C-alpha cells in the first residue's frame, strides 16, 4: 500500500502517542522519528489484523481499527444483514438487508476511510487453515456464540510453538475478545499459553435458560412454557395443522413464527395463562439478547485500544479482563483472570476424573460431557494407544460396541491417561487421568 500520498497531518493525534515517550509506555517502546517511523510503518504496512464478526461489535471494531491507523484488515462473518441489526450496526442501511455483513461492512469502511483495505470473507472461521491464521499480528473477536469463541481460542493456542516448555513469542497471537448483553459487557485480552484463555473461564458462563420438559408437557405456568410447548411438541404433532412443512421450520420466517405464536396462545388460553405476545414468542424461539449501540461502542473501543497499544508498545495494557455494567451508574471492574490449572486447552497439567472402574464407557462419556470443566460436544477417546470411542463413520462402527463395556473391561487402569479430542476444540488433545473410586 502506498502511504506517501496520505495527508501529512492526518495522523497527528496517534502521532503524539507513537513519537513521544511517556512514563507509562511499555519498556520495549522506541518512539518513531522522522527517519525511523517503524511503528507507523507497522500500522500501515506490516501488521495484519483479523476481525471475527461484522455485527454490532464488528462494525465498531472495523471503524476503530481503521481510525487507529491500521490498513490491512480481514473480516470474517457468514451472516447476512437483518432489519433488527439497523439500530446499532451503523455500516448497514435498509437497502443492505439480506446482503453479506462482512462484504457490506468492508466496502463501507474502505470507501469512508481513504487508504484502508478491509478484505471480507463470508464463511465460517472453521473454513480457514493454520497458515491463514498465522499471518495476523492480533485477532479481535466480536461474537455472540460461545462455540465460535472456543474454536478461535483453541486455534490460536494451538498455533503457539513450545520448545521444551519455552514459548516462542513470535508465535503468540493475542486474542482480544469482547461480548455484550444489553447494558453489560466485557473485554479481555488473551495471550495464548501466557495468560488465561477463553477455555479457562468456560464454566463461568451461565448455562442457557432451559425449562424442564415435564413442566412444558404437563404443568405450564408461564407464557414461556407455552411457547416452548409449541416449539417442542406442537411442531412434531402431526394432528396440528401447519401452513408449512415442520421439517423446514425457520424462526426467521414470519409465517412460521406466527404459527408458533398462535399455537402458544391457544395453549396458554387452555391453561388460563396470560402474557403470550408475538414479541415474547420471537424472544423465546430465537433466544434474543437485547443489544444497543452504546454498549457495543464501549466494548469494541476497549478491545481496539488494547490492539493499538499492543502493536505500538506506546502505553500499558489491560491485565486481562474488564467488566462493564451500565444498569446502575457506570461500573467498570478490571481484574486478572488467572490461568486455570489443568485447562483443557492451554494447560499443561492433566485433569483428574474420579470414577468407578465398573462404569460403562457410555456412562463415563455422559459424565464427562456433563462436567463443566470440559464441555465436550462430540468427544473421541483414546487410551494406551487404542481407540475407546471414535466419532466419524468407519471408526465409530468399530468402537461403538465398547459403549456397553466397563472401563475395567476396556483395560483402562487406575491413573491411566485418556486422550480426548473434540471438534469444538481444534487440534487440541485434552488429557484426563482416571482416578478409580472404591466400589462400595
Amino acid at each position: 500500500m502506498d502511504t506517501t500520498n496520505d495527508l501529512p497531518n492526518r495522523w497527528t493525534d496517534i502521532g503524539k502517542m507513537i513519537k513521544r515517550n511517556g512514563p507509562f509506555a511499555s519498556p520495549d517502546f522506541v518512539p518513531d522519528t522522522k527517519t525511523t517511523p517503524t511503528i507507523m510503518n507497522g500500522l500501515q504496512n506490516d501488521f495484519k489484523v483479523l476481525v471475527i464478526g461484522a455485527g454490532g461489535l464488528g462494525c465498531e471494531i472495523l471503524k476503530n481499527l481503521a481510525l487507529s491507523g491500521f490498513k490491512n484488515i480481514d473480516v470474517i462473518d457468514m451472516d447476512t444483514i437483518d432489519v433488527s441489526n439497523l439500530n446499532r450496526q451503523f455500516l448497514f442501511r435498509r437497502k443492505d438487508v439480506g446482503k453479506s455483513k462482512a462484504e457490506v461492512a468492508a466496502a463501507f469502511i474502505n470507501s469512508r476511510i481513504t487508504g484502508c483495505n478491509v478484505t471480507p470473507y463470508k464463511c465460517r472461521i472453521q473454513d480457514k487453515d493454520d497458515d491463514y491464521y498465522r499471518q495476523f499480528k492480533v485477532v479481535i473477536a466480536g461474537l455472540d456464540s460461545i462455540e465460535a469463541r472456543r474454536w478461535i481460542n483453541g486455534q490460536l493456542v494451538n498455533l503457539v510453538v513450545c520448545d521444551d516448555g519455552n514459548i516462542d513469542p513470535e508465535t503468540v497471537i493475542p486474542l482480544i475478545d469482547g461480548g455484550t448483553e444489553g447494558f453489560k459487557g466485557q473485554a479481555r485480552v488473551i495471550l495464548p499459553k501466557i495468560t488465561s484463555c477463553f477455555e479457562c473461564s468456560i464454566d463461568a458462563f451461565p448455562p442457557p435458560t432451559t425449562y424442564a420438559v415435564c413442566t412444558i408437557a404437563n404443568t405450564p405456568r408461564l407464557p414461556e412454557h407455552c411457547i416452548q410447548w409449541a416449539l417442542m411438541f406442537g411442531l412434531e404433532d402431526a394432528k396440528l395443522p401447519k401452513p408449512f412443512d415442520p421439517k423446514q421450520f425457520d424462526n426467521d420466517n414470519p409465517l412460521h413464527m406466527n404459527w408458533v405464536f398462535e399455537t402458544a396462545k391457544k395453549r396458554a388460553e387452555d391453561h388460563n395463562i396470560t402474557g403470550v405476545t408475538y414479541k415474547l414468542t420471537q424472544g423465546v424461539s430465537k433466544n434474543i439478547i437485547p443489544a444497543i449501540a452504546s454498549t457495543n461502542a464501549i466494548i469494541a473501543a476497549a478491545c481496539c485500544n488494547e490492539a493499538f497499544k499492543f502493536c505500538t508498545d506506546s502505553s500499558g495494557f489491560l491485565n486481562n479482563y474488564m467488566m462493564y455494567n451500565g444498569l446502575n451508574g457506570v461500573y467498570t471492574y478490571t481484574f486478572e483472570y488467572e490461568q486455570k490449572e489443568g485447562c483443557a486447552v492451554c494447560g499443561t497439567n492433566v485433569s483428574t476424573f474420579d470414577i468407578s472402574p465398573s462404569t460403562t464407557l457410555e456412562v463415563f462419556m455422559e459424565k464427562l460431557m456433563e462436567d463443566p470443566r470440559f464441555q465436550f460436544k462430540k468427544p473421541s477417546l483414546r487410551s494406551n494407544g487404542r481407540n475407546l470411542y471414535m466419532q466419524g463413520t468407519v471408526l465409530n462402527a468399530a468402537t461403538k460396541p465398547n459403549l456397553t463395556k466397563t472401563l475395567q473391561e476396556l483395560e483402562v487402569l487406575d491413573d491411566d491417561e485418556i486422550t480426548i479430542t473434540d471438534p469444538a476444540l481444534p487440534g487440541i488433545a485434552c488429557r484426563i487421568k482416571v482416578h478409580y473410586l472404591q466400589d462400595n
Partner: protein
Amino acid sequence: MSQTTGTDTEKYDRQLRLWGEEGQARLEKSSICLLNGTATGAETLKNLVLPGIGAFTIVDNQKVAESDLGNNFFVERQSLGQNRSKVVCELLRELNDRVKGSSVEEDPIHLINTNISFFKDFNLVIANRIPEEPLLTLSQYLYENNIALVVVNSYGFIGYLRLSVPEHQVIESKPDTPMDDLRISEPFKELEDYANSINLESLNSQQHSHIAYVLLLIKFFNAWKSTHGGKLPETRPEKEEFKKFFISKSRNYKDELNFNEGVTNLLKAFQPSRVPSDVDQILKDPKTSELTENSDDFWVLAAALKSFVEEHKKLPLHGNVPDMTADTLGFIKLQNIYQDKANEDLSDLTGRVESILSKIGKDTIPQEYIKKFCKNARFLHLARYRSLNEERTQPRTQVITGELEQPDNLMVFYIVLRAVDKFFTLYNRYPGFNDEDIDSDQSLLKNIVNQLLSELQIPTDLVKDDYVNEFTRYGASELHNIASLMGGITSQEIIKLITHQYIPLNNTYIFNGINSTGANWKL
C-alpha cells in the same frame, strides 16, 4: 404516546426489549445539543441517532481539518475545509431517517457568552472541549433552567465524563436482580387463608410435590410458631432447626422440587418486607410535605406513598410471582391471590393520590402512571446532582485527598485534567500541543497542578510528576478508541437520563485507557 410504526418496531426490537415503547417515546421526543463535532462528540451522537432520539443540533465553527480524517468517522476526505458541524450532521443523519439533525456554524464559546438562551429548548446539552469559564456560565444557566448538562472529554488515553441536573427522578430503575416480594414471613390474610386451606396429608404424591414452596413455607412457619410461642425462628440454630423440620415434612426430599425450592429460598423468606433506603429517602424528602398545585406528579405520588407506608408499615405489594414448581391450576390461583392484593394496594394508593390532588388543587394524574409508580415502589430512585459551580466553590476535599492517598488511584487524572483546563485558560493552548513546547509546558503544568492542590488544601506530593509528563505528552490528542469508548458511555448515560429508566452516573467518571480501568465519584 406515539407508537413506533411497524418497520421501526422491527428495527428497534433489540432496544425495545430494554426500555420499551414508553422509553422509546421519550427518546423520540428528545432534543439534544452538541458543542463541537469532534470524534468524541460525533461518536456520542452516533449512539443516540441509531436508537432514534428526536433531534440533534451541532454547534461548531471549525473547518474539517486533516487531523479530523485521522480520528473522526463522520467526516470524509472530500469534506476537508468544509464546516465541520454541517459535515458531521449530514453523515450522522444517514444513520436514521427519523432523526432530525441541524448544524449551527458558530463558535460555541461565543454563543454561550452572547446568546445563552439559545439552549433553553433543549432537553440536554453535551459539552466537549469547552474551556472552564464558558463551561461554568453554561452550567449555571442550564442548572437554573432544569436542563441536563453532560461534559465529556477524551484526552490522550484518558476519558472524563460529568453529569449534572438539579433533580432526576426514576420510577423504573430496573435492578439487575430484583428481590421477590412474596410476604412469606408476614402473609396477608388471603394468602395465609389459602395456605391453610391446603391439607397436605390428603394429597397424592404428584399433588404433594406440586404445592408451591411459598405455601409450604407459610404453612410450616405457622406450625413452628404454634410450638414456639408465636415466634418465627430468629437465631441461626433455630433457623437450622426449622430447615430440618421443613425437610422432614417432605415425603421424598430428593424428588420433591417444591421442598427443595423452599430450602433454597428459606433465608430470603425470613426477611420481612422493608422499605429500601433509597425509597425511604424519597419519602422523607421535604418535597413530600410541601406540595402545591405546581408540584410534579412524582412528588404527589411520593406523598401518597408516604401516607400508605405510615398506615400499612409496608410498601404496596408488587404482585408478580416468579416461576416455581407447582401445577398449573395452583400456580394460577397463587398468581391471582397476589394480583388481587396488588390491585387492592393500588386502589388504596390511588385514593390517597386523589385526596392529595383535591387538597392542593392539582389536575388528575393518569391511572397508568399511578399504576407504574405503585408497581415500582420498591425501585424508586432520586438523584440530586451537584452543579459544576458547587464542585469548584465547595470542593469535596476529603474525598479527593482520601482517593489520592490510595495507590494507583484514578483521582490523579481528575486533578491533572482540571490543571490542563486552567493551563488552557492561562495560555490559550493545551500543554504539549506543539512538539517544541513539551519541556517548558511540563514545568508550567506542574506549577498549575501544585497551585490547584494548594487551593484545595491537598498536599502537593500526592500527584507524581509522571502524570504531569504523561499529560504533556498527550498534547490534547484525541484518540479514536478513547473517543468511541467515551461516546459509548456518554450516550448510555444520556439514554438513562432521557428515558428515566435505570440509574445514571452521579456524577463523575474517569476512564484510564492505559490499563483499562475506571472509577466514579460524587464531586
